[in-house]
């Protein structure tokens, strides 16, 4: 009793302070909840508005636009005050992101050519940017002229980089069908120390053989081996398969010609060629399709690639078309 009274007495001031404290804390609780709510509402608003704004503006188009609108490298370089190498890296990073987002459908690749020009003006020794950029311009954008311009610029700044004349030679070989020029550039690459040995062999063969699918396949094998980036490698691998088709069509054209000579008519199916012993077997279509023969016209085509690669036909085959 006494103890409890004592304790009650002593707890008097304590309990009032406690009450006061709970009073305050319940009030600050309420305030805290309100502030928390306000923060949550505002956060949701900010996020919502951000998303809404993102949707209103095509982000990808915006990024493309920012690359298209880059100031010229000569202007940008001094503005970066000694950080122009980092600037080149950041623009390169952006180019890679835009290209990597999806299979690019743009017809107009001027932004790419411009952005690559800016990167290589900021850092004229960025060999990879010339090399990969030149390939993308030629293969994705189908602008061999821009690709060659970029590679020539790179060669001027980096006379010791064998990859640049090598890729230029590739452009002349595949896209411009100028085997003399291709051989010249390959010869230039073959003079630069540090090149792999196959450059020399290739240069020699280019001079001698000109357009042969076997040579093209060898060229492409090297490009595939050299490509570090999976996207670039895929481009070359597709091209490799296209040349395979061209090679197959070439051999089958020869068989078809012999068939016509002996039988005096076109085969009904491609299997006839095998059945009657004109070819050992029908090669596998590299894209997973099949080879077909049109009995009317006697034309052989691939089911996946109707357009023939016009260049790599062994001399003599189908000469009536040339």
């Amino acid at each position, binding site marked *: 009793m006494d103890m409890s009274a004592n304790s009650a007495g002593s707890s008097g001031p304590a309990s009032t302070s406690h009450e006061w404290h709970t009073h305050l804390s319940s009030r600050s609780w309420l305030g805290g909840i309100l502030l928390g709510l306000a923060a949550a509402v505002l956060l949701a608003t900010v996020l919502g508005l951000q998303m809404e704004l993102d949707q209103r503006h095509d982000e990808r188009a915006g990024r493309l636009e920012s690359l298209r609108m880059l100031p010229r490298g000569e202007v940008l370089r001094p503005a970066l*005050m000694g950080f122009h*190498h980092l600037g080149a*890296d950041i623009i390169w990073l952006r180019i*890679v992101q835009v290209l990597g987002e999806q299979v690019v459908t743009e017809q107009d690749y001027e932004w790419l050519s411009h952005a690559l020009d800016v990167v290589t003006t900021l850092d004229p020794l960025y060999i990879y940017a010339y090399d*990969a950029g030149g390939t993308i311009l030629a293969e994705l954008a189908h602008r061999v002229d821009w690709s060659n311009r970029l590679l020539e610029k790179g060669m001027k700044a980096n006379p010791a980089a064998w990859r640049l004349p090598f890729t230029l030679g590739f452009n002349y070989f595949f896209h411009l069908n100028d085997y003399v020029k291709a051989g010249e550039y390959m010869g230039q690459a073959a003079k630069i120390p540090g090149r792999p040995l196959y450059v020399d062999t290739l240069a020699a063969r280019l001079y001698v053989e000109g357009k042969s699918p076997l040579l093209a396949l060898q060229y492409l094998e090297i490009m595939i081996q050299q490509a*570090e980036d999976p996207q*670039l490698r895929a481009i070359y691998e597709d091209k490799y398969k296209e040349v395979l088709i061209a090679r197959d069509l070439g051999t089958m054209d020869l068989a078809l010609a012999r068939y016509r000579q002996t039988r005096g008519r076109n085969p009904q199916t491609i299997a006839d060629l095998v059945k009657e012993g004109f070819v050992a077997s029908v090669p596998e279509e590299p894209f997973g399709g099949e080879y077909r023969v049109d009995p009317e016209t006697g034309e052989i085509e691939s089911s996946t690639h109707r357009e023939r690669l016009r260049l790599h036909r062994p001399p003599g085959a189908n000469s009536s078309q040339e």
Partner: protein
Amino acid sequence: MRVLSIAFNTFRENIREKLLYNLLIFALLMIGSSILLTRLTVGEWDRLIINLGLSSINFFGVLIAIFVGISLVSKEIDKKTIYTILSKPVPRYEFLLGKYLGLMITLFVNTVVMVAGLLAVMAYLNAPVTLLLFEALGFIFLELMVITAVALLFSTFTSATLSAIFTLAIYAVGHLSTDLKQFGAQMDSVGKAALNAIYYVLPNLERFNLKGQVIHHVKISGTDVLLTTAYGLAYAGLLLVLASIIFQRRDFQ
């Protein structure tokens, strides 16, 4: 001796600055972010680490040099502690030199921390470390020495804010001075002489920029290293002497 004790005091004072730690943490974050960025890029990924690392060390070093450098003297004046120091038999130039050395110690420790961060990232990603990298880092430190001297010079006669603006301006022009010379070459004789004069008086900070050489493995000759080092030290020395002359004549009321 007195210079050194002022220097160590300044260093102790500097490491209490919160600004320093903010900048340092930010620099380390930037250097670390290259781990993520290398995954996004295509080809020559190690150049991105080196570029981002050296650029961060350079940029944040310059920020620290400017924003700590401008307050070296003005803080003492504001707190009126300068009277107690200058009433002792300490020549004013020794005071300035001590302050300068103190900040250089701070910057050195900072740079070492940032370089350790960069080397850790490079080791983690197996990027090759070359001698050229350390030459470039040495040159960045030389640039910091010049910039600190510029900040100190301005802080002897103007307010902290103005000093910061002036020093930033010198930093910008210092990186553009080669362009000034080129513009001058296309002008008439008067313009050419004027721009040439500006070119030779201003620090050519682009000389201390070896980032491109590191990523492209372009070796620089020993003579060039020596001459550029001498240039940096002489320029910083010149600025310190000018600062001492101005500080000597200044009246504190």
